[in-house]
C-alpha cells in the first residue's frame, strides 16, 4: 500500500482525496463559499461520469444519452416537491426506481443494436424523455421547476446545509468508486471486459452476454440517477435542458479527459473539465473554442487521458527505482 502510494499516480490520487476531505473546512476558513459550490458540482457530476465509465469503459457500450438519468433523478426531487412532498427517502427511491426502470426498458431495446446504432438509439430514447418533459405544462415545460426546499431525511441529514450536502455526495462518490473497483476485478467485471473485447467469443464460452450487458446498463443508469437526485437538490432548479444531448456529450468528454476505463479517471476528468470551464469562462466568452480544440487534440494525440499520463509516469518511476 505504501509502495503504491509513493508512485506518481498514488501521490496524485491520494492528494486529491485528502483535499476533497478537508476542502469544506479550508473553504469556510477562506470564506469563499463559491468554491464549495463548484466542488459539490464536481463531485455530483463525477458520480455521473463514474456510471458512464462503467458502461463505456468496461462494458464497451457507448451511450450518447446518459444525461437522461440526471434528468430522471432531478425530477424525482422536483415533482414530489411540487406537490409538497419533501421526504428524501421517497425522492431517492423514485430516483433509483425510475432510472433503473428507464435503463431496463430502454436497455432491452438498445442492446439489440451495436456500434453506431447503439450510440444513436440511446440518444433517441433520451430525446423522447426530453420532449416528454418539455410538453408537460404542469411541471413548467421548457421553463422547468424551482425546488424551494431540499429533500428531508428526518433528523438524520440536513442537506440544506452546504457542508452536509457536500459530505453526503462525497460519501456516495467514494462508495461508488469502491464498488467499481471491486466489481471490475470480480467475476462479473471479467465477463464484461471479455464481452467488450470479443462478444462472440464470450457467447461461445457459454455466457449470455446480452444479460450481463443489460444488468451493467441498469446499474450504470441507476447510479447516474442518484447523481441526478443530488444535482436536483444542489441546483434547486430543474429543467428538460438538463437532458439535452450536448450534456450527454459533455459527460463523455469528462470521462475521456480522465481516462476511459480507469476507476479513478472520472475524478480527474470531471474536476479538470469543470475547473477549466470556470477558469476559461472567466477570461473569455469564447472559451468553448479552447474546449473544442482541447477535445480534438486529446483524442488525436493524448491516448488514455490523464490517467494514461499518470500510468506512463508510474512506469518511468518504477524503472528509476
Amino acid at each position: 500500500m505504501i509502495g503504491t502510494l509513493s508512485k506518481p499516480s498514488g501521490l496524485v490520487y491520494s492528494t486529491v482525496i485528502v483535499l476533497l476531505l478537508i476542502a469544506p473546512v479550508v473553504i469556510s476558513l477562506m470564506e469563499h463559499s463559491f468554491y464549495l459550490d463548484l466542488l459539490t458540482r464536481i463531485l455530483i457530476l463525477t458520480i455521473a461520469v463514474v456510471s458512464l465509465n462503467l458502461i463505456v469503459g468496461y462494458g464497451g457500450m457507448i451511450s450518447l444519452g446518459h444525461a437522461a438519468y440526471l434528468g430522471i433523478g432531478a425530477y424525482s426531487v422536483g415533482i414530489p416537491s411540487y406537490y409538497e412532498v419533501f421526504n428524501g427517502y421517497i425522492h431517492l427511491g423514485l430516483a433509483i426506481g425510475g432510472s433503473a426502470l428507464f435503463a431496463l426498458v430502454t436497455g432491452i431495446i438498445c442492446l439489440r443494436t451495436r456500434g453506431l446504432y447503439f450510440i444513436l438509439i440511446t440518444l433517441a430514447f433520451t430525446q423522447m424523455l426530453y420532449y416528454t418533459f418539455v410538453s408537460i405544462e404542469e411541471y413548467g415545460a421548457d421553463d422547468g421547476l424551482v425546488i424551494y426546499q431540499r429533500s428531508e431525511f428526518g433528523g438524520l441529514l440536513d442537506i440544506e446545509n452546504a457542508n452536509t450536502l457536500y459530505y453526503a455526495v462525497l460519501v456516495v462518490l467514494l462508495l461508488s468508486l469502491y464498488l467499481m473497483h471491486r466489481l471490475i476485478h470480480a467475476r462479473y467485471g471479467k465477463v464484461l471486459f471479455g464481452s467488450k473485447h470479443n462478444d462472440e467469443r464470450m457467447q461461445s464460452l457459454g455466457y449470455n452476454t446480452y444479460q450481463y450487458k443489460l444488468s451493467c446498463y441498469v446499474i450504470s443508469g441507476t447510479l447516474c440517477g442518484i447523481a441526478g437526485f443530488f444535482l436536483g437538490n444542489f441546483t434547486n432548479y430543474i429543467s428538460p435542458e438538463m437532458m439535452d444531448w450536448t450534456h450527454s456529450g459533455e459527460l463523455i468528454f469528462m470521462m475521456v479527459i480522465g481516462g476511459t476505463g480507469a476507476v479513478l479517471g472520472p475524478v480527474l476528468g470531471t474536476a479538470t473539465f469543470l475547473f477549466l470551464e470556470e477558469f476559461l469562462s472567466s477570461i473569455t466568452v469564447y472559451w468553448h473554442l479552447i474546449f473544442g480544440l482541447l477535445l480534438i487534440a486529446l483524442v488525436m494525440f493524448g491516448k488514455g487521458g490523464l490517467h494514461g499520463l499518470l500510468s506512463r509516469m508510474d512506469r518511468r518511476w518504477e524503472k528509476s527505482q
Partner: protein
Amino acid sequence: MMLEVKGLHKQFGGIHASRDINLVVEKHGVHAIIGPNGAGKTTLIAQLSGALKPDAGRLRFDNTDITHMSRHRRAHAGLVRSFQITSIILPMSVLENVMLAVQSTEGHSYRFWAPVSQDAELKEKAMQSLSEVGLGNRADQMAGEISHGEQRQLEIAMALALKPKLLLLDEPMAGMSKEESANMIELLKQLKGETTILLVEHDMDAVFSLADTTSVLVNGHIIATGSTDEIRNNAEVQKAYLGD
C-alpha cells in the same frame, strides 16, 4: 450418437451455402469434414454452434433437440467450438482467458465483490487446461503477445476448460507453420478418446492422420462419408475435390 444433423438448409441471397446436409457424429473419436474453399464449411460450423440460424432442418445433440437453442446454452450443454480466426481476449493474460472459460462452467457470474485474482480454485482449474495443451509456462503473458501457434493452443485450452462433450474445431491448423501443425496434431491425438471431436480442416495430412470418419462437403452438400480409405478411393470425391 453425439450429434445428428437432418436436412440442414441455409441460403444467402441466391447462394445455397448449405443444401440438405445430413450428418451423424458418433460418440468418441474424430469426425472430420473436408471440402474445397467456399464449400460451406464455415456456414455449417456457424449453424452447429448457433451463430447462424438454419433456414430449414433439425439439429440433435446428445439426445436433445438444439435447433433453436442459443449459443451460450449450447456451450453449456457441451457443444463447444473453437474459431478459425484466433478468437481470444487479447488484452487479458493467457491464464485469465482460460479462467473466463472455467468461470463459465461454475454457474452464473453475477458476483460483484470477490476478486478473481484471489480465487485459487479457479486458477488451478485453468492451469490444468493450460498444461494439457502445453501452455503452462505462458500463463502470465498477455494473450496478445504469444505466438500465433500458441494462441491457437490457447483457443483449444479455453474450449477444453468447458469440459466439452463435442469439440467443434474450425480449421485449428490454419496459418500454422509445419512444426506448429505437427504439435497441434499431437495435441489432438492426445485429446482423442477424452472427448468427441468434429474437425473441419483444410490440411489433408492432418485429417488423414486423425480422423476415424470423414465427410466431404462440396457446394454446400455432403457428397460422401466414410473411413479414410473409403474417402481416398471414392471416385466422386476424387473428381470433386482431390482430382485436380
